[in-house]
């Protein structure tokens, strides 16, 4: 009887460990979607890659605000009221413009609310967008390259010798 329950405990334990390992690895790579499907199949490859539009032309707030800012529909329409208006994707964009609705973009680089991350400070320090976002210009659909975990942030802060870069309240709120 004792042996039987002992074997049972071992089986439960092993199953638990295996479930944990599988769940942990799945959670990191699949549950947190690194390449979400966007409402409009916007291609950074065409805009930033082939046409070489600088990042800050659309993401205008990078240098002066905490948030980089997703461009407004108006900014899209600035070009696309003239360029390629017959394309079905642009027609979708125009429908958003006509109904006066924002496009429900899915956030790729999503930080928790308790993280204070100012884009302004990082861009003004002379960091390249590629350092965190990867080579966006070659991505058709944007993929999150970096882990955005605390250790990843701190690595960079330590290497560059950021003043008070390891203080909790520099990045947490």
């Amino acid at each position, binding site marked *: 009887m004792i042996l039987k329950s002992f074997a049972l405990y071992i089986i439960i334990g092993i199953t638990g460990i295996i479930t944990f390992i599988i769940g942990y690895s799945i959670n990191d790579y699949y549950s947190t979607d690194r390449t979400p499907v966007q409402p409009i199949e916007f291609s950074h490859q065409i805009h930033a890659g082939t046409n070489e539009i600088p990042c800050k032309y659309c993401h205008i707030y990078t240098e002066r605000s905490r948030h980089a800012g997703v461009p407004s529909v108006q900014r899209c329409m600035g070009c696309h009221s003239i360029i390629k208006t017959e394309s079905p994707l642009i027609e979708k964009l125009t429908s958003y413009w006509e109904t006066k609705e924002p496009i429900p973009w899915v956030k790729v680089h999503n930080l*928790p*609310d*308790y993280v*204070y991350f*100012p884009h*302004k*400070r990082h861009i*003004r320090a002379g960091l390249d967008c590629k350092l965190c976002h990867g080579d966006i210009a070659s991505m058709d659909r944007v993929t999150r390259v970096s882990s955005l975990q605390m250790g990843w942030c701190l690595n960079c802060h330590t290497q560059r010798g950021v003043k*008070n870069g390891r*203080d*909790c*309240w520099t990045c*947490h*709120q």
Partner: protein
Amino acid sequence: MAGLLARIAERWNIHREPGFFKKLDHKWTMVIDLDKCNGCGACVTSCYAENNLPVVGKEECGVSRAFSWLRIERYVEGEYPDVKVKFIPVMCQHCSKAPCETGCPVYATYHNQDGLNVQVYNRCVGTFTCATYCTYDVRRFNWRTYKFEQPLDQQLNPDVSVREMGIMEKCTFCIQRIRAAKDKAKDEGKTVEDGDIQTACVQTCPTGAMTFGDLQDADSKVAKLAKSPRRYKLLEELNTDPSVIYLKRVMKEGPSKHG
């Protein structure tokens, strides 16, 4: 083993060195002139608005779960016709030798380079140790996740996180405003000057009883006020070395005329 002990002793000596706290970047200090304080409670209200504090309601208040980071203590001396009333606004004193910091098992409350006693919300596990150790009873605990109903969620401050159940919190000296001022100063290539930073309570105080500034800067308003002969700190004899300095209310001896 001996090496480890030697290293611990060395670190200990660094922190016990008399000049240690003078090596800070800043020493944020608040001076409260009790002569000017009339106990109106505007500071309390502004604190609620600035720091996303939930209003818990009557029942919760009844079991002492009120959420005010800043409270006004009333002291009444004497019987009815000859009454003397004193008000003392009490918030986290940001003690230089804080008792709360010694208790935290996960290092969620610590002293930073600005001389602030800060609380890291996402690190806190809610052991309640700091609140037990606190001399001034200023720490507040989230007994539940308080909801901000429509349309109140629209007035939340985006610079301050909304805390959840099981997290200890307290006055931060409006660290988000300190950070914003530093950010602005950095853009302009300057350092933070006296008067750049106003905490919510300082900004709101109608009589100007509160002053906020850097004690290390000898020309600051705070440093001058701190030399006043009326200065005192709360429970100074416990040697917690608070960063909040009070200026004593001076009242005439004998019965008061205005009641």
